[in-house]
């Protein structure tokens, strides 16, 4: 009887240990950032963030802006090898947040009309002191991933075609 109890307690303990080891804690947004990326990551969310749609309407070339949006807009929203990516206005729902959608790349917003999506996108480029895009992939530099909601602080770059690029000096990962 004693032997049985000893074995039972051992098994329970082993089970608890295994469960504890197997459980992965959800990584905090931006926690995978590199050492170089830390200087671009803001510890507090900048105030007065506006959506992409609103900023596209209001911002002029050279304006200082604070913009909020979600990383996505295509299957590959990242600029390869550079700290740049697309963000989409937060009012748009990703495909996986819509009913009856089993899209494997929900961040491409393929369930929204392309012409509407194009008007709700902006390009974010994290720039160094010389104004050059940091030559490290944003996922490595900032630890961000698709569908993260980010608040970006920087200078707006506009052209006569209505495109909006944010030359970001700082970025806060909201979720």
């Amino acid at each position, binding site marked *: 009887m004693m032997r049985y109890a000893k074995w039972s307690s051992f098994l329970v303990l082993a089970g608890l240990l295994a469960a504890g080891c197997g459980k992965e804690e959800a990584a905090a947004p931006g926690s995978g950032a590199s050492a170089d990326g830390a200087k671009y990551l803001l510890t507090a969310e900048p105030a007065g963030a506006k959506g992409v749609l609103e900023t596209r309407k209001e911002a002029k070339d050279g304006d200082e802006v604070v913009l909020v949006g979600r990383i996505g807009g*295509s299957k590959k929203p990242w*600029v*390869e*090898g550079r700290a740049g990516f697309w963000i989409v206005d937060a009012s748009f729902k990703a495909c996986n947040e819509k009913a009856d959608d089993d899209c494997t790349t929900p961040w491409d917003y393929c369930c929204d009309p392309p012409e509407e999506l*194009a008007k709700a996108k902006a*390009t974010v480029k994290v720039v160094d002191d010389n104004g050059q895009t940091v030559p490290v992939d944003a996922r490595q530099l900032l630890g961000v991933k698709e569908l993260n909601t980010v608040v970006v602080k920087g200078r707006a770059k506009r052209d006569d*075609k209505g*495109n909006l690029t944010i030359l970001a000096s700082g970025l806060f990962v909201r979720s």
Partner: protein
Amino acid sequence: MLLFRPLPWEYGVRNLLRRPGRSLLTLAALTLVVLLVFVVAAFIRGLETNLSVSGDPDVVLVHSLGASENVENSSVAGRTRDLLAASLPGIRRRPGAGGEQVVYASSELYLGTDVGTQGQAEPALGLVRGVTPSALLVRRKVQIVEGHWPGPGEALVGRLAGAKLGRADSLVVGGVITFEGRSWRVAGRFAAVGSALESELWCPLEDLQQAMKRQDLSLVALTLAPGAGFGDVDEFCKERLDLELQATAEAAYYAALRKHYGPVRALAWLVVGLVAGAGVFAGLNTMYGAVAGRTRELATLQTLGYARRAIALSLMQEAALLAAAGSLLAAIVAVVAFNGVAVRFTMGAFTLRVDGVAVAVGCGTGLFLGAVGALPPALRAMRLGVADGLKAV
């Protein structure tokens, strides 16, 4: 150094000649099995080579957003080439005539369409690329091997374009082909080191646009300048949201296709395994028969003082000799009859390649069959009692 006295090498060789009928049949079976392995290995090597030589690491394809997996569905504005040339300093350039810069950027209209050839009632699906002379700057592997660059109403055909159409000999220089409602005279033939381009038909971009009543392009192919990177083009495309462009490294485009054909390759290797397995069983059967018919002979060898291991080794020697001869014959047939044979597949055509890897796989399989096929009968021979063997009928 063997710890026993082996049978003379000639004994095994002579044994093969003592039963020529059986030896020939075994040789034929082994040759056939190894030949099948050669054909499948050549298929895999041909497909792999076709996709691996396709795609220049310095070339970037700029196409419409979302068309990275199928550029045939891409549509970009006709002015895209000039826009990219003006905006991207990272494109390769060289001084041209009259002080103008020659930009390594090629506007292309690419599609799969029905192509009619002379003497054939039914058209077949072919791959057509509308190009300008700049294509030769960017597509560095292309070499005109016969005829000349196509003028108005003419087409340049790839070395494997006929195979892609299922009519290998139908595309001759001076002949006429039809597609998109127009007739095109074949001005020449080109090779491209076995890449996917060889399955295509090239014609002047403007002519194709007129025939199709289109003004757009499928893509612009760019060669990067030394020091420039894919990121330069990707960054431009990401910034110019209004153009809805996407950049794909040509090497990555073909790497994705290679991944797409992964299951085909896996299936082909499975066929190699299955054929080899069937060959092992056939070899086993033959060698078991050979041992069963020579029971008294093997027992006599034991009474003469040869160790059982020596007899087993001699049996394996016979099988290995047959397998080696079979592999050699199969290799010769494969090189003569199958090497370079064009095979049609969805993306174009490629040629079977009996290269070093295919020869190693084929001959390795053959020798493996010989060794493994002879092992169980040889082990059986080792267990044979001398008295029982001598009494066997």
